């Protein structure tokens, strides 16, 4: 690109709901923003969700208008499939960042997203955007509501057979693309890198990854979403429609043994939400939620919890100790029933682990001259949490959304509002 812009007012790292909100707010104030997203589409975790609590609005319907507004805004430039490699602060309102753009091996301006390439591709691998529930091809459009909705080639798994190149009607396939690393100038930086999900494989006593009919809450989120892979709820072991599901709360949260002693703040509510949705999707199914404490603290949350109880969702107090598998694929959950003080073993035909959220601390390696500080749980440290929650230890670097701690979608958007106004006032400040 000949006339590529190398100078922006703000660098926003992360294209989830917090990053989009920050970028949009700044763009509307006429600041030039570069939004860098490591995935192939912006939208973050929210675009993959089914519905949001406690209103049960469709997540995709709320987030896609914001996604396309972000994508179409003239003041916002988006790099997907890209990573920030190094940020150096040279002075106030003077940051230098190296950004690596990984090739899609598909010409972005030529691809129409017609998906003609997909049927001819001989390679099938697990689809990370469906959380491994189904497969995808090595050349693929990430998901149906992705933005940009264009194909990419997963070069790690590609057999380089060239079938897609022949099938593409607009000659968009380009195997000659190479990674490109360039240095850009910014006046401020907003970290909106979100969170990681706890991987329950780290708790072998639950048998995730070994017992076939245990899935994570994010996988259930996909099964319930409008763009869901099976178009119904199935258990992965044998494709049976479950009729007795269990939710295991606090999987990887409030647990010292996995290094995450704090509450993830969203699991109680998303589990209650999923339980309500399951009541609709599988009217005959029983849903039991095993919990330590139900934390329904937000506006309308407790009413939402009461609604679930009214709908017939069972709530049982007791942490699941171990899960074993029966020959027919059903699962035996062992727990100490806190109400009666007796150890119980119950059978369910499908188990959902309500996995916690963990800090995404990779951004720490990116800051070269002045290190970005983290709190005890590896979230970006808010140096003035009560008065100016978006401030980090570096002047001109702000934090938005779950990068600063576990939070739900409305809180992420609030946090992004705070970060964007802090960034705007920093940019406008007269020296």
């Amino acid at each position: 690109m000949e006339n590529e812009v190398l100078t922006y007012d703000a660098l926003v790292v992360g294209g989830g709901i917090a990053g989009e909100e920050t970028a949009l707010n700044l763009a509307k104030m006429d600041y030039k923003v570069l939004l860098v997203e490591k995935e192939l589409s912006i939208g973050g975790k929210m675009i993959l969700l089914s519905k949001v609590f406690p209103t049960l609005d469709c997540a995709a319907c709320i987030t896609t208008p914001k996604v396309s507004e972000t994508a179409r805004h003239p003041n916002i430039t988006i790099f997907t499939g890209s990573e920030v490699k190094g940020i150096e602060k040279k002075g106030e309102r003077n940051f230098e960042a190296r950004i690596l753009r990984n090739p899609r091996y598909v010409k972005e301006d030529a691809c129409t997203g017609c998906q003609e390439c997909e049927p001819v591709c001989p390679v099938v691998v697990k689809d990370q955007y469906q959380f491994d529930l189904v497969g995808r091809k090595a050349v693929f459009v990430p998901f149906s509501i992705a933005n940009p909705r264009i194909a990419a080639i997963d070069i790690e798994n590609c057999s380089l057979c060239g079938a897609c190149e022949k099938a593409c009607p607009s000659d968009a396939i380009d195997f000659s693309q190479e990674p490109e690393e360039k240095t850009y100038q910014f006046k401020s930086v907003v970290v909106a890198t979100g969170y990681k999900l706890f991987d329950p494989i780290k708790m072998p006593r639950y048998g995730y990854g070994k017992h076939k009919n245990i899935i994570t809450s994010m996988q259930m989120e996909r099964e319930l979403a409008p763009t869901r892979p099976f178009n119904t709820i199935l258990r992965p072991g044998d494709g049976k429609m479950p009729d007795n599901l269990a939710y295991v709360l606090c999987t990887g949260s409030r647990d010292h043994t996995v290094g995450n002693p704090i509450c993830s703040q969203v699991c109680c509510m998303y589990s209650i939400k999923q339980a309500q949705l399951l009541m609709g999707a599988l009217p005959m199914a029983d849903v039991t939620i095993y919990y330590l404490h139900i934390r329904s603290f937000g506006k309308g949350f407790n009413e939402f919890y009461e609604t679930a109880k009214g709908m017939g969702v069972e709530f049982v107090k007791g942490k699941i100790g171990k899960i074993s598998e029966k020959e027919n694929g059903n699962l035996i959950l062992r727990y100490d029933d806190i109400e009666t003080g007796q150890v119980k073993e119950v059978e369910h035909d499908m188990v959902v682990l309500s996995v916690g959220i963990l800090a995404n601390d990779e951004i720490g390696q990116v800051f070269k001259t002045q290190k970005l500080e983290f709190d005890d749980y590896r979230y970006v440290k808010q140096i003035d949490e009560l008065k100016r929650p978006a401030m980090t230890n570096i002047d001109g670097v702000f934090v938005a959304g779950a990068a600063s701690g576990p939070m739900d979608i409305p809180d992420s958007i609030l946090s992004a509002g705070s970060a964007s106004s802090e960034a705007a006032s920093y940019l406008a400040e007269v020296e």
Partner: protein
Amino acid sequence: MSKVDPKLAKDIAKYGAVDFSACYNCGNCTAVCSLTEENASFPRMMIRYSMLGMKEEILSSKELWMCYHCGDCSATCPRQADPGELMAGLRRYAIANYEPSGITKLIFKSNPFSILLTLVLATILGFFLLTMKPDFTVSRWIFSWMPYAVIHLMGLIVFSFTGLTALLGIFSMSRRLNSKHNTDSNKTKKSIFQSIGEVMTEIGTMGRYQKCSTDEGEYWSTKPNLVRPWFVHWSIMWGFIGLLVATILDFLFKDPATTIWLPSRILGTVSGLFLIYGTSLAMFYRITKPTKTYEATKLADWMFLFFLWVAGLTGFWMEVAVSFNLSETLSQVIFMIHTIISMELVILFAFSKFAHAVYRPIALYFLARNRE
């Protein structure tokens, strides 16, 4: 029902369990335990009792003795409240509270006291032993101060005291467990004889202990049975019982065995080997700490184990010394050590970890009584 007593938690902490107040009552410990069952729910229940200060509930819990401290609960506790260590601490607490003299409380709470007591006892026992050879200079010197009859009487008093205390401890525990059992009396499902049979089976096979920490992925699941804790315990226990029987047989037949092929001698040799194997491995684990179980080893654990180990080793030395005619003076000294250590084990029976040898079977009996 006991009254709520917030001071109890502090008292229990003196017996070694310090972290249990971190518990948020999730029940993970109970759920991961392989031994907890409908009729015996632990460790969470014990943590609740401890936090609320329900002393009588603790002392009348058979559950304390259902646990073999495999450490699974502590390893997976989300709050690092170390429930396994609390169970161990409560067993010390119970041993100290069952016997009425208060000596055990001092022993478990104060390391200097327990060391001092052991040393004083060793000195007294040493003198006592020396008097068995009346023509010895030291003995003559002792006798000039204290006639033989007095020493003999003192010995009788000490052994009566220790025996009586043990009996009172057993009585105190049985009474409590029995009254608890009677309040849930509708649960009695097994006869006395069946229950005793079940206890015997457990002592013989350690069937419950074998279930500990052996789920897939747990530490002992990949280790052979010979080095697993249940077998280590089995070796120590049966080694000790075997040696006890052999000693009694020798004593009864007044035949200080001229040949090692005498049945009682063979029993003694084999048992001694088991005891040495078990205690050595147990000490090795307490030093290398392969699992959470061994992380908080107390002086009381060390003393009991070390005494058994020394008793086994010195006993075996004498066996060898007799067979190979080794130096007499050295053998005399080792015989002294062996006897002093063995006597201390017996005298301190009700005041030490050793007491579990009677308390655990009693608890197992009550467990068996109301099981299907």
